[in-house]
């Protein structure tokens, strides 16, 4: 299968410290790639460099063969790259439905046509389907800020899928979510993946979540890839154990 995302020799330094140090990897179409690593290993910095939130010091990022290094996040999103953040990022004053419409509206026509077009940008039905898919029907009109943390995590993930992206990067989707909601989130992500054949990259600390969801795992430590492979082989890799346990 072709690579949706290609990262070549990516490096990001803050002062003299390299948070990401020459990382290269590909993500193939339809794959769920997990990126794990101890705190401070450079996972989020890597994401932010790939997604245009940070300008890499060196290296190149390609999406579907097109160089996207340093491209603005909004332009990347329009190319079909979507993301969630480590910390919750919903719009608390907007309803669940409006959060979802917002997540897709910039893909509908031009800025001018959106001003004179329909209030829901023609996304009302799509938002309702996404709400049903993530089982948030009873909360559709509720302000996002009033939802529980787990429900907001579900909404956050739903927003990332609203524009029908080719590639979704999920930054610690399970962080802070209770076990019941975690199961629901994993199940919805797997369902979305098998239904739409979407490509995911997932950063996660919760090992069980990664092992159950991902088809391949990369392990980062001190800004470098120290192991790569299927979840089982990575789990038993001595380098990974050492990086996590520190001996």
């Amino acid at each position, binding site marked *: 299968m072709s690579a949706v995302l290609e990262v070549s020799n990516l490096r990001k330094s803050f002062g003299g410290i390299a948070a990401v140090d020459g990382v290269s990897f590909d993500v193939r179409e339809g794959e769920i790639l997990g990126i794990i690593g101890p705190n401070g290993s450079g996972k989020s910095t890597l994401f932010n460099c790939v*997604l245009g*939130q940070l300008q890499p010091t060196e290296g190149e990022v390609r999406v579907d063969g097109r160089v996207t290094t340093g491209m*603005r*996040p*909004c332009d990347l*999103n*329009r190319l079909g790259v*979507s*993301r969630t*953040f480590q910390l919750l*990022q*919903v*719009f*608390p*004053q*907007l309803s669940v439905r*409006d959060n979802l*419409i*917002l*997540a897709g*509206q*910039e*893909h*509908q026509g031009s*800025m001018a046509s*959106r*001003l*004179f*077009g329909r*209030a829901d*940008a023609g996304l009302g039905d799509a938002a309702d389907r996404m709400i049903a898919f993530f089982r948030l029907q009873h909360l559709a009109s509720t*302000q*996002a*800020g*009033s939802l529980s943390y787990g429900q907001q995590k579900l909404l956050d993930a739903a*927003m990332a899928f609203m*524009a029908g992206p080719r590639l979704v990067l999920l930054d610690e989707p399970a962080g802070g979510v209770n076990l019941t909601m975690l199961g629901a989130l994993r199940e919805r992500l797997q369902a979305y993946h098998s239904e739409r054949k979407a490509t995911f990259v997932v950063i996660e600390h919760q090992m069980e979540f990664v092992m159950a969801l991902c088809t391949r795992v990369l392990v980062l430590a001190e800004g470098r890839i120290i192991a790569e492979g299927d979840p089982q082989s990575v789990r038993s890799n001595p380098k990974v154990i050492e990086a996590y346990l520190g001996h």
Partner: protein
Amino acid sequence: MSRLGAVVVIAAAIFAVVLPFFLKPFGLYLISMWAVLTVAAIGLNLTLGYAGQVSLAQGAFVGIGAYTVGLLLPIGVPFPIAFVAAGLLCFVVGWILGYPALRVQHHYLAFVTLAFNTLVFLVLRNEEWLTGGTYGINGTPRPTLLGWSTNKPLDFYFLCLGAMVVLAAATWWMLRSPWGRAFVALRENPIRALSLGLDTRRYTLMAFAIGSSLGGLSGALYAPLVQFIEPNSFALGMSFNLLLMVIVGGGGYFFGPFLGALVAVLLPEWMRVTQDYYLMVYAALIMVMMAFCPSGLLGLVDRVGRRLRSGEQGPAAAAFEPQSTPP
């Protein structure tokens, strides 16, 4: 809008049409001033209340609009053209003023806009060849539109009211479109908005430009209303007063500016019964109001309404709640 809200709006609209027939000229002047300043406050509410971009320059845009009309009408330019020119000029200047907002936010942006207001004031005061300097511009005529003379206070009030209604309706249209949602996203979480494909630069500039344009259109009515404009009217005091209107009414609430302008225009006049102390009493009232309802009067109404309906807490993150994340 709830059914109760619709009833209140319709009742207020009927009141706004019927009331002036029972008012003397000064009363008509005051409610005309309310209509005019409401337009400027709607603009500031768009920039600050919805899009979360702090601006202390709205008074300057009212000034630019007022001087545009004050200069164009005496040389024979028809009022509708001068009116549109005032709006367009402020749109362009507002767009340019929006650029600093792409680099700085919050109190830093407040200082940038404050400096701009001072700059406009200095230009109005010092460029005598154009603006008349401290002598200002006298006798800006009230227009005659399609044979309808607005020279009398009652007629001019209806011109101001009509303009306010049309501009408010246009703003409402925009805010209910995807643009309105994008402005709120800009206020609440620009980084997330950017990651969802929103071109936050364009929306920021647009929020400044449209808000400033409404300030200019307000100024275009202000000049023929007061018929004497001079630089001091558009100094920082005007900008602070417009900011007060937005915050007292409820920033981010569509009807906030209407209510805020009503309080800021009429309350000082009602306080005149306290004679020399009226401004002090007015200031004290405003301080008490802000201490007890920092999200403005409509924020208070909203909170009370929610509690009555479901016992739930008020809006999760009203933009002007002091404990919420800064817009």
